[in-house]
């Protein structure tokens, strides 16, 4: 087949060119356009004539056009490869790349401006993908950095935790070992009950530690604290038992108890016992040896309050906010005073009961007060069980 040259039809080339053409008057009004532009946009001649280029753009595009591309055109006499979104007749956006050039007289006056537009769907999509990929990558990196920092903090915490745990278990274990040694060596004697009591104290301290560690593991793994709420079970025996245990462990300390519970709220008794036990342990450890530890409990139809107070040096104000954080003790000290978990766990238990623990500390006394609402919203048949 021969390659016959047919003369190009210039009018058809303009009208049906593979790109859109617009011509603007010196004042920027559309005066001429080709068929391709109309086909691509669905706009009719009456939608285009006398319009400005910016009228075909969405608001943000129009602002950017007016503040950036229109000045560029006036200054340079042209612009190339400008990304625009043209609003089609159906309201959809047509992403295009536009070139524009001014046609001027020799004196420099603008005769008209020619604009050529190319569809840029694919290119725009590609650019968006690049931007999205960039953003995704950045977000992923940030997340990774955060996870890394958390892991590192976690690792440090664990290391510290293990050191403190080893330290804290060693002392009571040594006491038990010493007690056993004495018992084995001397057999039963009049000192035996005292030795056994000391050993029991050490064992209960160790079991308290282990209890708290297990709770920490649970709360830190996000499982939260699961409560086994019992409705109407009398609270006073639960409290008395905890106090008796502590009194047995610390016979030389004076515990002054005042319990007035008129109404038994739905609580997890084992947890509440643990809460009070931790507060008592804290008072025994940090309170002045020669001053009594006072326990006050009061409960009515609306509120339950249990407070534990001790004498001795007040807690420095700057420490108050740190009290309920795990491992607040910070570093391993020679005079081990526990893992620093007791108050953290107590607070977790309080929060699980929708309650709170408040701290008041001055030269007279240091008092931790647990309070919770006793209005039972979960059940309607057990509130007056105790009456």
């Amino acid at each position, binding site marked *: 087949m021969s390659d016959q040259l047919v003369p190009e039809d210039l009018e058809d080339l303009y009208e049906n060119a593979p790109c859109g053409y617009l011509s603007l008057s010196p004042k920027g009004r559309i005066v001429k356009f080709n068929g391709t532009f109309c086909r691509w946009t669905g706009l009719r001649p009456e939608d285009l004539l006398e319009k400005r280029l910016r009228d075909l753009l*969405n608001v943000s595009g129009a602002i950017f056009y007016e503040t950036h591309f229109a000045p560029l055109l006036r200054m340079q006499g042209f612009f190339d490869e400008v990304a625009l979104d043209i609003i089609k007749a159906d309201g959809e956006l047509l992403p295009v790349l536009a070139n524009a050039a001014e046609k001027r007289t020799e004196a420099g006056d603008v005769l008209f401006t020619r604009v050529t537009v190319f569809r840029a769907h694919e290119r725009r999509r590609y650019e*968006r993908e690049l931007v999205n990929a960039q953003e995704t990558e950045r977000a992923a990196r940030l997340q990774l950095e955060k996870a890394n920092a958390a892991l590192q903090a976690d690792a440090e915490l664990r290391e510290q935790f293990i050191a403190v745990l080893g330290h804290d278990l060693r002392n009571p274990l040594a006491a038990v070992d010493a007690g056993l040694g004495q018992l084995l060596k001397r057999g039963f004697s009049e000192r035996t009950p005292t030795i056994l009591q000391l050993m029991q104290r050490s064992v209960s301290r160790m079991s308290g530690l282990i209890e708290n560690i297990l709770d920490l593991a649970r709360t830190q793994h996000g499982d939260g604290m699961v409560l086994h709420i019992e409705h109407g079970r009398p609270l006073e025996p639960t409290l008395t038992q905890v106090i008796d245990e502590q009194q047995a462990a610390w016979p030389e300390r004076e515990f002054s108890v005042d319990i007035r519970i008129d109404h038994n709220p739905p609580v997890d008794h084992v947890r509440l016992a643990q809460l009070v036990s931790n507060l008592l342990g804290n008072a025994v450890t940090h309170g002045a040896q020669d001053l009594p530890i006072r326990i006050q409990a009061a409960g009515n139809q609306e509120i339950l309050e249990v407070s534990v107070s001790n004498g001795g040096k007040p807690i420095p104000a700057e420490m108050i906010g740190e009290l309920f954080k795990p491992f607040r003790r910070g570093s391993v000290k020679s005079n081990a005073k526990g893992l620093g978990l007791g108050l953290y766990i107590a607070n977790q238990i309080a929060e699980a009961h929708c309650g709170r623990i408040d701290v008041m500390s001055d030269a007279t006394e240091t008092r931790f007060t647990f309070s919770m609402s006793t209005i039972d919203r979960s059940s309607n048949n057990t509130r007056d069980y105790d009456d």
Partner: protein
Amino acid sequence: MTILQRNNISIDGSGERTIVFAHGFGCDQNMWRFVEPSFRGQFRTVLFDHVGAGRSDHSAYNPRKYATLGGYAADVVEIGRELGLKDAVFVGHSVSAMIGALAQIEAPELFSDLVMVGPSPRYIDDADYTGGFSEAQIEELLASLADNHMGWSAAMAPAIMGNLEKPELSEELTNSFCRTDPEIAKQFARATFTSDNRADLRNVTARTLILQCRDDIIAAEEVGEYVHREVAGSQIVYLDASGHCPNLSAPQEVINAMDAFV
């Protein structure tokens, strides 16, 4: 880095009084290249780029300082004091009209005359006030700058790097003109289009001329008229020019109006 370098200040002309020309959002001091030369005979003329625009020192850009127009106004006051201005004329295009007003309020001794070209104290409609844009439209603009800055910059780069077809423009001009760091453009857009300086207008004490274009989608006639009402003793002149940049599209009209005023 001096203030003069920071804001890429160019000084020309000679005269007792000084005219300071300030560009708006988008582009740089070259916005004034068809207007400023006409005043060199009678005035000392000062052109500058806002920090983040044109050939200013981009390392001086501080997102917190420039989060509001106040940061830009503080720069104008610094420039005025550095140059020892007294009773000078401040000509601000677009958002710089308000920046100039804020600077004039802060340091009234610097500027006795204010020319506001296409001013708007607030772009977003509010109760009885028509700014021209809904909040959603401005959010769309800011989002499109945020989402699509690569699209913008990819589109911008070839245009400003392109071969010179207009020999009177130097290469360095075409390379810098209208080029904005996309991050800075985004923040300047936010500072501009979310500003509300209506309450400040009453505190302007300079003689004020407002130049209002026809068909300006960014600062419509009723916005210019609002400014005219609020600035005591101000004059308003309607230009035949259309669009938002009469300093480029109808420089002679701007020159004539300014001449008659100063």
